[in-house]
């Protein structure tokens, strides 16, 4: 499984989510890749894909507004993103 990207609407929410997750797993804030950003610039948290369920639990428990979940994979040397429902 590749990396999990959680896209959010604001850098404040990105930092809040990062603070909530970083004690439990490896995370990093990144500028959302244009391929998945939709409306333009935004921020995402990147972590390992296997953390998905734990991430969802933490998000729900803290009532965070999330734009989407994506799995980042590599195909033919390029990064590709699969949206998760």
């Amino acid at each position, binding site marked *: 499984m590749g990396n999990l990207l959680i896209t959010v*609407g*604001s*850098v*404040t*929410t*990105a*930092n*809040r989510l*990062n*603070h909530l997750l970083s004690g439990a797993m490896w995370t990093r*804030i*990144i*500028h959302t890749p244009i391929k998945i950003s*939709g*409306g*333009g*610039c*935004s*921020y995402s948290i990147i972590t390992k894909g296997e953390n998905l369920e734990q991430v969802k639990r933490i998000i729900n428990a*803290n*009532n965070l*507004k999330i734009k989407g979940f994506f799995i980042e994979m590599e195909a033919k040397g390029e990064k590709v993103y699969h949206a998760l429902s």
Partner: protein
Amino acid sequence: MLYLDNAATTLKKPARVFGSMIYNTFFYSANAGHGGHFYSLKTASRVYETSEKLAEFLGCETPERIAFTQNATYALNLGIKGYVKKGDHVVTTAMEHNSVLRTLEEWCEYTVVDAEKDGTIRPEKIRRAITPKTKLIVVNHASNVCGTVQNIEKIGKIAKEMGVAFMVDGAQSVGVIPIDVKKMGIDMLAISGHKGLMSPLGVGALYVSEKIELEPFITGGTGSDSKNLNQPRQMPDILHSGTLNAPAIIACGRGIDYINKKGIREIEEQEVYLAVRLIEKLKNMDKVIVYGKTSKEGRNSTVLFNIKGKDSTEVSGILNDRFGICTRGGYHCAYLAHKAIGSDKTGGVRASFGIFNTIYSVDSLADSVYKMSKSWE
């Protein structure tokens, strides 16, 4: 020089605030939230830490409900103009600063509830001033003129009962009087960073509860949703157009750390003690008039007085020039408040104590006022 103008700004700050300002100006002055590189993200993370500290300090739902501004005046403008539409009505009080009154004057219909002679607002008068068109109540928590503190929790209850939003001007209270926005029923709180929170100049904030939806008053780049020509609707981005004053905001967080370590109740008690000590001394002087509350209940550290028959700006000037004491004379951008407490003909001399003032500060001012009043006999 002895600095007694803490109601304008706390000139003296904890060493950690200065240290943070210097360090973060040097290392983390990137554009927070406008980029994905190391310095931008690190700066944004440190700005966020201040949001988190402030949200916890005030009992806000989440850090996202805090937007940073230049000062409390900007916060009041963003809140009032973002929430009240033309044709709406606002209830406010005679104790407000011009940051509220001038904003309302140019923006909408409003009613000014009068104050008692000591600066107190009777909450029931606010209830009676509410009309079917009233959308917002704006009340100043602590007077910048005479230090009177209003019963915010009671006014918050009235606002809730009447279904009207409640905005508090916390410029003179945040950092020196305990505030819990939920318990007090506050929907919007205008915050000054550089006063009670002891941040460098150029920092204020607006708390907006989850119940309130604002229209943006200032629009521009937020670092988010860039393809959309409409301003993002989510907090705090809706209010965060342009580059934030990151080093000062981060230093504000260090000011909050200082207050948390010292204890806000201890700070309040110490500052009010100094104010009451001054009042007691001034009351014993024949030629001196003291305005507002004279006991420790319902007041903060701001004291207003006059020497009978003397121009307040002249007295303040002599205190500065001859005695080396910084006070503020005049009307303090709040003429209606002066009118309410009876100092509208002369203005007043304001002494406002901060955490770094001592009994020596009080006694020095009192001695100087006494000498001055005697010299005019």
